[in-house]
């Protein structure tokens, strides 16, 4: 019950936050969230939610998805709200990719935006050819992101910690500078991206829903929601599999993992490629939705945004990722009211969260291989 209440409440809260326009409304909503959290801890409500989640996870997941779809449909006519929902969802998907890399396996990746951008650029180039069906372009975006990460495999596998960080930072800078200095991919001016098309349906058109004129972003919001659910399920299955267990072992102690037959190299390679694949796919859809991309959108600071989603949410925690993606994407937007002061405020806010919740907003729980099923022990 408590779990269902939280899911429904979160849906309403999301709606209110998207609709909030005035400063006092945004501040009020943030204060409300803070107070509700404190109250939930004080009254033991949190524990009840956790218990519900442990007992009925699949049902609650389905409910959450239904609430998300409901939210999207309620806002079907509101372009901007749908754009924001889709952006949150796509950043969330990207953060799951990163989470496989450093939430599970401990591989730091400070070039997330580069792989995200690789997907978007793939969508731009392939979309312009009109030879490949757009649905396949999404996958192609992932594959290209994976392919450009191949040269990094050797240094990534051999280095650890900060040394690995430098490899990815260097790659991120290199990627962006490369896009800027040559004209092949539009140079600094960027490229147009064709919209998503399914057979018989161009996402450029606004769907007609029971006679109501809706926003064309409805297409993207629904598709992003579907993709998010799919990647979420994959992410959960990965976590709850031997591969996920091995990734944890590699993150927590490479030497011990190797002594128990786990191939550290293969595990890292798998995590790096799989993560970049997901980053690329989400980037491709993002590119199609935004319809115009340029190197300036895939900089080091954009990579940092992705990293901060993972850390704010809690390493390896997908639900934390949802909350963090909402904060990281929506908050600067809501802070537009503060104009030039908003980044200062945003960075201070992130520092405070990390100081007081170093494990992230919703820390990851212990592994439960098959939720909803009592494993015979």
């Amino acid at each position, binding site marked *: 019950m408590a779990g269902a209440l939280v899911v429904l409440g979160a849906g309403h809260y999301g709606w209110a936050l998207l609709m909030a326009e005035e400063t006092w409304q945004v501040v009020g909503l943030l204060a409300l969230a803070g107070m509700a959290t404190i109250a939930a801890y004080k009254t033991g409500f949190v524990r009840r939610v956790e218990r519900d989640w442990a007992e009925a996870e699949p049902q609650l997941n389905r409910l959450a998805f239904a609430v998300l779809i409901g939210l999207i449909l309620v806002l079907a006519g509101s372009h901007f709200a749908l754009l924001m929902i889709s952006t949150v969802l796509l950043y969330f998907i990207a953060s799951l990719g990163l989470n496989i890399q*450093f939430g599970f396996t401990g591989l*730091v990746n400070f070039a997330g935006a580069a792989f995200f951008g690789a997907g978007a650029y793939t969508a731009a180039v392939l979309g312009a050819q009109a030879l490949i069906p757009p649905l396949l372009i999404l996958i192609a975006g992932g594959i290209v992101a994976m392919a450009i990460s191949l*040269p*990094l495999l*050797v*240094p990534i596998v*051999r*280095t*650890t*910690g*900060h*040394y690995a*960080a*430098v*490899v990815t*930072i*260097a*790659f991120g*800078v*290199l990627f962006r*500078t*490369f896009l*800027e*200095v040559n004209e092949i991919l539009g140079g600094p001016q960027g490229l147009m991206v064709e919209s998503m098309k399914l057979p018989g349906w161009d996402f450029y058109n606004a769907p007609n829903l029971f006679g109501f004129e809706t926003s064309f972003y409805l297409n993207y919001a629904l598709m992003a929601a579907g993709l998010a659910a799919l990647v979420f399920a994959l992410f959960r299955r990965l976590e709850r599999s031997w591969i996920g267990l091995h990734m944890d072992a590699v993150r927590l102690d490479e*030497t011990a993992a190797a002594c128990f037959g786990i191939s550290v190299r293969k595990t890292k390679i798998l995590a790096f490629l799989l993560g970049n694949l997901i980053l690329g796919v989400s980037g491709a859809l993002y590119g199609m939705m935004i319809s115009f991309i340029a190197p300036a959108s895939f900089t*080091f600071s954009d990579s*940092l945004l992705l*990293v*901060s989603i993972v*850390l704010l949410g809690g*390493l390896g925690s997908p639900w934390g990722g949802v909350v963090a993606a909402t904060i990281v994407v929506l908050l600067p937007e809501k802070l537009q009211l503060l104009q*030039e*002061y908003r*980044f*200062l405020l945003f*960075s*201070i806010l*992130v*520092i405070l969260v*990390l*100081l007081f919740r*170093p*494990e992230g907003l919703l820390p990851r729980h212990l592994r439960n291989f098959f939720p909803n099923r009592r494993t015979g022990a």
Partner: protein
Amino acid sequence: MDFGLIAQYLANGILLGTMYALVAVGFTLFFGVLDVIKFSHGDVLMLGTFIGFTAWLGLEAVGVTNPWLQLAGVLLCSLAGTALIGAAIANWLILPLKRAPQLNTLLITLMLGTAIREAVRLFYPNGSNPKAFPALLPDASVEIGSFALRADSVILVVSGLALIGALNLVINRTRLGLAIRAVAQDEETARTMGINYTLVVLATFAIGSGVAAFAGIMNGLYYNEINFGMGLILGLIGFSAAIVGGLGNLYGAILGGFLFAGLQVVGSALLPFASAYKDVFAFAVVIALMAWKPTGLIPERSSDRV
């Protein structure tokens, strides 16, 4: 390529290398004592330079016009102020996070860097525009063919190298240095030896930040221009240099700094009309180096006991 051109590249490489090394040394010191990367280092450097600039404005205002006196004042204020800021950051943001995952420190300091940068941009008078940093050093120069050797560059390089040398002495020859090395080696043992752990960490951050402020002032004196974004790129390069050289090792940082400067200069010399590719070149070499030497050119002693 004629001699003048080569000499010019060489002089430029040495100056850049000294500057990068000074920044990288900070990263490596912090990593040594606390195993953390303080990413706001570059922005602290920028803040230090602005403190120095403000000090100069103040000195001008009260009528001190002798450039050497001004320089002394600028350096004093900047180094002391930045050292204090470095220690404060260590005390309130980094030490409390000692038990948290390393990545958190990285992100917090990155965000702190953003906050410092934005604060200077917004609150320093007209901070979003570049400022003219005064040329306080003599501007004489010796012409050797087409190569102009400038007195200020020589002074900057010599004093920068001297500072690195002095730092090396402090680390290797003084009680404080001994304490820093002890803490770097093993915190627990250092504590049981009666070393005031917190004090040593704060001192290290103060020293590292002060050295960075020196690099910032050097930057200002050489380019005669400072701006709120100068720390970002210097920090990134300093960090890369420290890593490529090998963390936790003074010589590694110096080597990395000069290596990076060398790469940039060579990159733009070899790619004469495509010098925009020089960063692509420098960072590609960094990636290759990491693949070849995954723990840096001068690797740290493996602390991973099995």
